[in-house]
């Protein structure tokens, strides 16, 4: 699928400025950029959630996983009903297993879950929609490192098994580097650099990409 000349404007402010980006079938494109650079607006436009100009071609059954697990689940619906809404009641247990949550959680309400547990429910819900394109907006930024690893492995597994096409948005270049085949760097609403992952990470062409690389938290070495 391909995003062509997409722009999003809020009043006089241009959040996304003429972005063209191709997401190959079965590929994972990583989108990185700073706060307010327009990543989430681009994601929402691709999902048809905000008005935009330009076009999104060839994307069927787009599902999205949101950044904030506190706002993305209906507080009055149980986990089971939330997941069943797209996938049907029979799939609930399998989907919970996919995101490594025990089946007993199906009867709980979001307020009875910790933040990380909520995010995993949101991922299960999106997977239940059998997405042709999955837009993941900072889905690991509120997850534990241990779970983050599992989710990243899961993301890669889904790509390999189901040929899942994904737009994977994250502020962490290390995370994006691990899952994405192509990395796009966004700055002030524009794409400043797009290229194969190893190239962008290994020989960053744009100054802003280098700043992002420097911001990756490091523990080892």
């Amino acid at each position, binding site marked *: 699928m391909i995003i062509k000349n997409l722009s999003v404007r809020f009043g006089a402010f241009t959040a996304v400025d003429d972005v063209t980006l191709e997401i190959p079938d079965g590929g994972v494109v990583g989108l990185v950029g700073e706060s307010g650079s327009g990543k989430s607006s681009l994601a929402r436009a691709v999902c048809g959630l905000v008005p935009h100009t330009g076009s999104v071609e060839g994307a069927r059954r787009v599902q999205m996983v949101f950044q904030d697990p506190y706002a993305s689940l209906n507080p009055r619906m149980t986990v089971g009903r939330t997941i069943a809404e797209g996938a049907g009641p029979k799939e609930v247990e399998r989907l919970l297993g996919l995101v490594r949550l025990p089946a007993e959680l199906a009867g709980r309400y979001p307020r009875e879950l910790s933040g990380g547990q909520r995010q995993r429910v949101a991922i299960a819900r999106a997977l239940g929609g059998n997405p042709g394109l999955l837009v993941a907006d900072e889905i690991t930024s509120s997850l534990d490192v241990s779970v983050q690893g599992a989710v990243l492995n899961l993301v890669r597994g889904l790509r390999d098994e189901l040929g899942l096409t994904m737009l994977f948005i994250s502020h962490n270049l290390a995370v994006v580097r691990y899952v994405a085949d192509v990395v796009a760097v966004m700055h002030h609403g524009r794409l400043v650099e797009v290229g194969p992952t190893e190239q962008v990470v290994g020989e960053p062409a744009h100054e802003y990409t280098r700043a992002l690389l420097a911001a990756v*938290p490091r523990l080892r070495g």
Partner: protein
Amino acid sequence: MTGWSRRNAPGVAGAVIVAAMAVLAVVGPPIWGDEAVRIDAAAILQGASPGHPLGTDNLGRDLLARVLVAGRYSLLLALAATAIGAVAGIVLGTLPSVLPRRAARLATGTVNALVAFPGLLLAMFTAVVTGLGARGAVLGIGAAIAPGFARLTQTLAATVANADYVSAARMLGVPRRRILTRHVLPNIAEPLILNLTQALGGALLGLAGMSFLGLGVQPPDFDWGRLLFDGFPRIYVTPEVALGPAAAVALAGIGFNLLGDALARAAARTSVVRERTPAPPVADGAGEPDPGAVLEVRDLTVTFPGGVTPVRQLSLTVAPGEIVGLVGESGSGKSLTAAAIGGLVPYPGTVTYAALRLGGRDVATLSDKELGTALAMVFQDPLAALNPALKVGGQLAEVAIVHEGADRAEARRRAVDRLGHVHLPEPERRARQHPHELSGGMRQRAVIAMGLMGTPRLIVADEPTTALDVTVQRQILRLLREVVEETGAATLFISHDIAVVGELCDRVVVMYAGRVVEELPAGRLADGAAHPYTKALIASLPDLDTDRSTPLAGIAGTQPAPGQIGLGCAFAPRCPLATARCESERPELVAHGPGQRVACWEVK
């Protein structure tokens, strides 16, 4: 008078009045019904007398009895009018979210026009068209109430309709009608019900007004408005005959309004500030306070009914000017630990501890005010900490007014100063804005500024940057550092992100299944971590050299739920080093090198 009773006195008064009205409606007619209609030719048009405290009417009927009996009819009519108005309003208000775009705009326009139309005119017009009498009046008042309800429903629905969970449902192809009944209506029911109470008071007054104008209840029926209408011509001669029904109407109207108001405020409050949990039972062996610690926690346990114990005998200390990171995976009890320190564990949780001291004093002995100034809490979701209806500056000022008795101008000046202090651009202008007009990072700055309104000795920050982007995250972390260095406050920084903690903090406390499993200086994280869980956490962190062709080293299995933690080491089912002993016997936290403590049998 305590703070609670001062704050809630109007609500209590409202509840008492409303309850009294309900009782009157039930018992009034059976008790005084006969007297209210007994005609007495000898006592026509009298003023107040011992036998007739409110006088009599033109047929000699006792007016006090009539006022008491009319309560039922007045309330029933008000209920009917409110029900009609609410149903019509809610239907009208939800139309825009189910209709196609063009029709939706028409519905919105209609509501806007109706809201702008004077309510009384609308009521009178409807009443005249539908015919004089009780039915017309009820329909008229219903029509007058409906636009307000429609507007409220519309605004609430629009807010919920933009929520992420509604977007998610829409993308899953859930039909519009189902989105409305499942996602939108249940989430706006609460404010609508509160509004209903207030509308009831309004309907009561409105109906009385209609009857008073001769448009409402017609004889021989009577409600308060009708009694007022009949008594009014005599008001200069015998005022009591009109004042009785007038007082009844006013009292009932005020009662419903007070109650509705108090309910609405209580509902707004529960989602923002929770009541403090009562002082926990103190286990013995508290010992002497640690003089070098601002926060001292020993054997803190949080339990929920049903054997669910998310925090188990947790101990930690934080020294002045020190940032201690509390890490652990989701559900390990980090947030509940923070909540327990702030006295915010939600009902029905119970908190016990051997020691929980802030500046050397047991937190249970601190007043709300002392705790409010000594402790600043910053949460993951800044919106939850800010009231959406109030301006940012006013909310900050409120802290100084409530906790320190500062006067309004001084509090406001300080609020703007603090906002500037956390590097919020244009603090003057931002102070006059509402929270939703600020970006996520700005809101979090505002919350930190709020914490700085007092002079906090301890800052507890629970995932303050998780919802923020990396660059903003760095700015907020730098700000926290700055604040700590400047104020010398002790800080407990909670995060699931061990890399962030490693960069920001002086010391790291690792939690697993409600217990501390390792404690070490942040600088030793990279190569000095000893507990298998800490090591696994670090290994599962991807960096720029991670091999992309192999799966990330995760930790297989899941953390046990707080109700299913066994006797032994809670990590045993996932631990590569586990032995038979680990399953049955729990390792204690013991010293392991300088500044480090580990709870593991296999670490020697």
